């Protein structure tokens, strides 16, 4: 039996963070491949050969018709059963930034037990009305079933999006998701004491997009499918931090790596 988890990092159509997404999974001890979506559609490659799927950030189809919509449709219409089988097999999935938008628009997140691919939430335009690249501080829900964020408290990461305001048209769902620990990660004031995640929307730019309940990322009920707007893969090394030149640090792995290591270890311990 192989002991190195294999990661399918999707590419094509304007996905553009596949290089660093591959790099972080490899740093975390996995073997990651760049997998063009069409290679899964035409059967040249198969998700069956992988234990983790990552939908990286980018601007798939230029964000036209709503970020993630068209790529979500490619997966929802073109790869429907392959993706459902992957999720139902209990294999971890992550969507980062545009990848998160894809997973939400195709209904995989926050998702449902049947993996019916029905959209229940969305990512609206930031209240600022435009794209922004800035650093934010995130806090993780210690009671979340999310296997990706296990043991994590806080993390500093860049956000780089124009449509990251997590909303839904049925507010009762928010309570359900909160109850089941699906609101796995939220924006938080870096100057506050841990834990301090709250439902009250934090001022801009602590919350860069005015997301409801400061939600930065969510997982499905199983905790295996996870997505977030910020970019943990962009904080893979200490020298990429926003203020690292002001800090006395031992250089090495960055704060974002825990997420990827968590998933790789989960696969090693539970699936291989």
């Amino acid at each position, binding site marked *: 039996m192989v002991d190195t988890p294999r990661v399918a990092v999707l590419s094509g159509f304007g996905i553009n963070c596949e290089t660093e997404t591959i790099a972080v999974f490899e740093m975390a001890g996995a073997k990651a491949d760049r997998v063009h979506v069409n290679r899964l559609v035409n059967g040249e490659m198969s998700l069956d050969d992988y234990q983790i799927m990552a939908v990286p950030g980018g601007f798939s189809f230029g964000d036209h018709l709503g970020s993630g919509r068209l790529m979500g449709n490619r997966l929802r219409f*073109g790869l429907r059963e392959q993706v459902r089988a992957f999720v139902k097999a209990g294999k971890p999935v992550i969507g980062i930034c545009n990848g998160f938008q894809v997973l939400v628009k195709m209904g995989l997140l926050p998702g449902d037990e049947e993996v019916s691919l029905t959209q229940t939430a969305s990512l609206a335009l930031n209240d*600022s009305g435009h794209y922004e690249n800035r650093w934010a501080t995130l806090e993780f829900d210690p009671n979340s079933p999310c296997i990706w964020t296990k043991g994590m408290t806080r993390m500093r990461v860049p956000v780089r999006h124009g449509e990251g305001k997590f*909303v839904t048209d049925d507010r009762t769902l928010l309570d359900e998701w909160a109850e089941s620990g699906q609101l796995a990660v939220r924006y938080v004031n870096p100057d506050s004491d841990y834990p301090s995640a709250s439902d009250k929307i934090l001022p801009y730019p602590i919350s860069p997009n005015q997301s409801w309940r400061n939600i930065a990322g969510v997982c499905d009920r199983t905790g295996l499918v996870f997505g977030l707007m910020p970019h943990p893969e962009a904080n893979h090394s200490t020298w990429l931090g926003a203020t690292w030149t002001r800090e006395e640090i031992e250089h090495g792995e960055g704060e974002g790596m825990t997420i990827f290591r968590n998933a790789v270890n989960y696969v090693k311990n539970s699936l291989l």
Partner: protein
Amino acid sequence: MADTPVFSYEVTTKDVEGLPDARGDSIKAMFASNYGVEVGAVRVILRYQVRAQMSSEEARSAIFDLFADPVIEEGSVNETLLNDQTVFPIAPQIAIATGFKPGVTDNAAQAGLDGLLTIFPALFEQAEVATSRTYLFWGVPEEISPDWLASKLHNRMIERAIIADTIDCQAKNWPTINFPDRPALLQQKPSIVNLEVSDEKLIEISQTGLLALNLEEMQAIQAHYRNAKVRITREARGLVPNAPTDVELECLAQTWSEHCSHKIFAAKIHHIDTETGEDCSIDSLFKTHIMTPTLDIQSKVDWLLSIFHDNSGVIAWNDDWSLCMKAETHNSPSALDPFGGAMTGIVGVNRDILGTGLGARPIANTDVFCFGPPNYSGAIPEGLFHPSRVFRGVHAGVRAGGNESGIPTVNGAIIFDERYLGKPLVYCGTVGMMPRRLPDGRESHIKTPTPGDIVYMVGGRVGSDGIHGATFSSLELTEESPSSAVQIGDPITQKKMIDMVLEARDLGLIQVITDNGAGGLSSSVGEMAELTGGADLDLSVVPLKQAGLSAWEILVSESQERMTIGVSTADCEAFEKLAVLHEVEATAVGTFTDSGSFIVRFGEQTVADLPISFLYDGCPQLQLESEWIPPIHEPIIFPQVNANEFGEILCRLMARPNVASKEWWVRSYDHEVIAQSVIKPFGGVNHDAPGDAAVIAPIQGQTQGAVISNGIAPRYSDIDAYAMAAASIDEALRNAVCVGVDLDLIAGLDNFCWPDPVESAKTPDGRYKLAQLVRANRALDDICRAYNLPCISGKDSMKNDAILDGKKISVPPTLLFSLIGNHSDVRKAVSSDFKNVGDHIYLLGETHQELGASELAFMFRDESNGRSGIGGTIPEIDAKRNLSMYRSLTAAMGAGLVASAHDCSDGGLATTVAECCFGCDSGSIIDISPITSDCSHIDSWGALFGESLGRILVSVKPTDSVAFEASMKGHACYKLGRVESGDNITFNNGNDSVMTASMSALRVAWKGTLDGGTN
């Protein structure tokens, strides 16, 4: 298609508590920020018109499967949302619908079509989509007319607008944009152009055809067709022997255009200096002052892999990887359509990188813009946009182009001067990276074409957009400038192509590659034909956006997102298969040959036969006159001020657009994609202190880095373009030194943007402008040699004039100097922000009384309505002294002795100290007395606001002070003070207080000017 039904989809934000219509809010904020016009509310309806054979059931399913978000948006098909009382209970006061004119690139429509085909694959090749949007206004001030609003919401050159005023809105007479159908084109047969005419007539042919060729050039073409040998060959190939086809003439015009062949830089110049009495002849500024110094440096180093001849210059970064860099300008298109022009600028220069060697991956962008003042209140000539609109449009174009391509924008600058009102300068640069060797063993920076290789056109299709871009940019801008020169880039088509090309490269499928930019296929195929000695191109197979284009149009169209690639016949099948996988169009359009000729056919008919030698060496050398007479300026009038008033002057200086924070704009560029960003555009405790150079570590997990910086100082051209060029180069290098660049591996790019320097009736001061160019080139030569800084690539744009309302506006001569260098260990990189209260502050480098053409001088000029002049001593450079100091400083950084380093430039020492304090939320106390020893006649103005070159402001931990001072021994290194807590920034001269200011007041001034508006 006429009987195919059109479905009209409408989408708008759902009215949910806590969910604003951010699109509408942005428009509202834009009106407030750009024009000071406050409207009550704005909503936006997006509209997609779909022409397709769908059933109404299918059409309905597509509302929420595709066009509208089922959770947060309202959607409808064939019913306008404006009539839906639940969506818009109160009718708008004004409604304005805007959409593209026929033939203009509509990226959202293209995406919509792709999405439609995902759901209904059977519609392939039969469906069409067009987008438009309707802006709804409530609470519009009385004095604001619907027409005025509409004029700010669309660009008449490329868009249409339909307006519903209050009466229309009350009558529910909503504005609608019709499907942008293009009128059918009738293909013109290639025509013959008779050149056996008078000289006047030759000039007329050039002018009416927008060929931008002068008489000597027209005569050279005339002579070619008189050559007996040429006539015999032509006859044999079935061409009219004694006259060019329109295809040939257009091809020559593109190839010989100033834009493509840099005739002014290649000219023979008679130069007179009235100051020194010099009278000399310069045979090509490029060869004399750019190529020769770089070749001299190349003979001393082993890392200059490819210079001058490719799409960008290539340097060896380490044994495994090389880096390349290129910067371009896209000025004329950006004046006509700021968004589209700038976007094509950035995606265009990305293709230069993709077309370098056998293909490099773009890994970083740089953007430097020069605009008219954003707060300009004078009259705007007909045909021009207000600078704030140009600014916003250019910024949005570069943002979309860079962000959607997944290439981080890591460094740049924005400069303001009234003379950029006529033509903005839009410099777009890109850094690329490639493996030194491909898996098949070939060196990636060397193209390997052989006769017989198949010519593929890859990416976008050819349309009537972008015809005559190269020749158009070689002319001044007028009201009649053609809209066909305007294009909108399509980053996603290009991104798919980049993914495909890089995969093809690694599979060894590419023998030669270049981009289709200026001159289109005529340039791309022509240039590569020079490598094998010929090419045979068939225009009839080129995929078109619209049927009916004539042969010459297909040949010279600059439609975007296209590469031309040479593939061995054995690899064609694999290459085409890869293209299909990536959904990229790749079409075999010809063959490289060694026939000595560039032969163009349209099916069976030969339409052009141009000998390669004539095409590339036939253009006669220009002979130009240059005369330097130093300009005379009125002196600066300095006010009598006390320390507080000095502080107010600093405050006003910090609010000047040239100095003010650009954070609002820069933050909307992605600067961190690829996860390599070590030193970012902003740093400091609040992430708002401006950095100097960018540092990236492009191999994830490794610590070797690359440094990217820019220098630009057009103000100094008003006194001497030599000083301007010297200041630009030193600024670029200083910025790089501030982060700890490896001074043994640095390379530069020279990007000249000049007003027309050729004396003529329209340009009576051509000799002076050419003398400015000569002086700038001499500075480039002198300084680059002294800094051991080879110019690996460059570009010039020489017609940056606008004639509008009969008045000529010329840009100030501007050199952008961009730099790329190595960083040995990014963990030792230094940022600009002060780190801790108590740290010692040092100024490195000598300060002289050099206030001529300084930012302060311009501020006093503007504030006094021109009574105060800009005259005075301008910064003089001592490159040898500077370099020696820079070396000691980088060594001190390597030893970890430097806490912060910040370039001292616009606004001088005072603004520099303030910026460093922003990064630490601190104040400081500075004593300027030590620096007065540099110069016998320096005063407080010179010490605080002078812009002497070669200076860097550094802070050092108290415990490192002794070691730092020892390491800087022998250099001008003055301890000026310390970082203090609190809100005050104080400058003393010994015991005398010179200037004092509140940091919070400075911050407000500095951040307020260029705040782009908040929703």
